[in-house]
């Protein structure tokens, strides 16, 4: 029997779910900044949108279910940049941990 490929984790149309959260959640400053950076990378051809979606689809299911929209964007971007050899994952992890440890102010600008 032909093996049926697994359903993509993002392919959730029609699956049971809960009441739709309606409260307005304003975009955080870093989220706006991250989206802008995502747009710049995409416009420069560093990656394309389909590659990005494919990277998100590779998230482990349990992680995907708990994930927040903006964190998925950041993670997908990071995964793709690592895959393309543009950044080193170990360095990213180390620097992220360092920032968390130091508690840099949110409005840190380059």
């Amino acid at each position: 029997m032909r093996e049926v490929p697994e359903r993509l984790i993002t392919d959730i149309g029609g699956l049971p779910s809960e009441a739709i959260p309606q409260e307005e959640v304003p975009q955080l400053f870093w989220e706006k900044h991250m989206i802008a950076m995502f747009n710049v990378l995409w416009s420069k051809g560093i990656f394309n949108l389909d590659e990005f979606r494919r990277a998100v689809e590779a998230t482990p299911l349990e992680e995907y279910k708990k994930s927040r929209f903006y964190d998925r964007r950041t993670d997908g971007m990071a995964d793709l940049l690592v895959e393309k050899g543009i950044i080193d994952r170990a360095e990213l992890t180390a620097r992220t941990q360092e920032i968390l440890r130091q508690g840099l102010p949110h409005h840190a600008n380059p």
Partner: protein
Amino acid sequence: MNHDHDHGHEHDDAHEHPAQEDNDVVLTPGEAKFIALRAMLIEKGIITGEEVRRRLEFNDAATPHQGARMVARAWVDPEYKMRMLADGKKAAIELGIDVLEAEIMVIENTINIHNLVVCTLCSCYPRSLLGEPPAWYVSKAYRSRAVREPRAVMQEFGLTFSSDVEVRVHDSNADLRYLIFPMRPAGTEELSENELANLVSRDCLVGMALPGTNLNL
């Protein structure tokens, strides 16, 4: 154009951060990762801080009001309406709106058909026209349920239609981005184009509200 960079972070309880005793905000792993990523990309010369800032400003200019202007113009100008229904991107550009999406398809609501937009697979939305979508639009609950039980979903938002009105759901799963063109409310003949635009909220443009009834503009 106003930038809200300088006021402090405001978290309401709807956010997933734990409550803080003082006014310090919590640095999340997601934000820390972003800060690290940006620093590394700038160091490597892949992007510059200026490029990101410029794009941030461009993105800030995109708001639902841009879509509302198109709707209002189409209500008063039948020829513009025809052009808009034929090519949403060109019609936006005609009004001086900078749009980056490849194609924007405008879908007209009629007395027989009410249209609703969703992206079940991710969160496709005409962002360069309207700005970021609302949290409910990108929620997994909406993405899952809108295609299967659109009437129940719309009812949660206070919208109901009789059974002889066709509810047509558009799953934005490929290359098109959609803008819903709502019907002009009755009794608005005396309003100016600007006043008409103010009747059209963000949620009207995805089919989750009707003009003039949603005060959350």
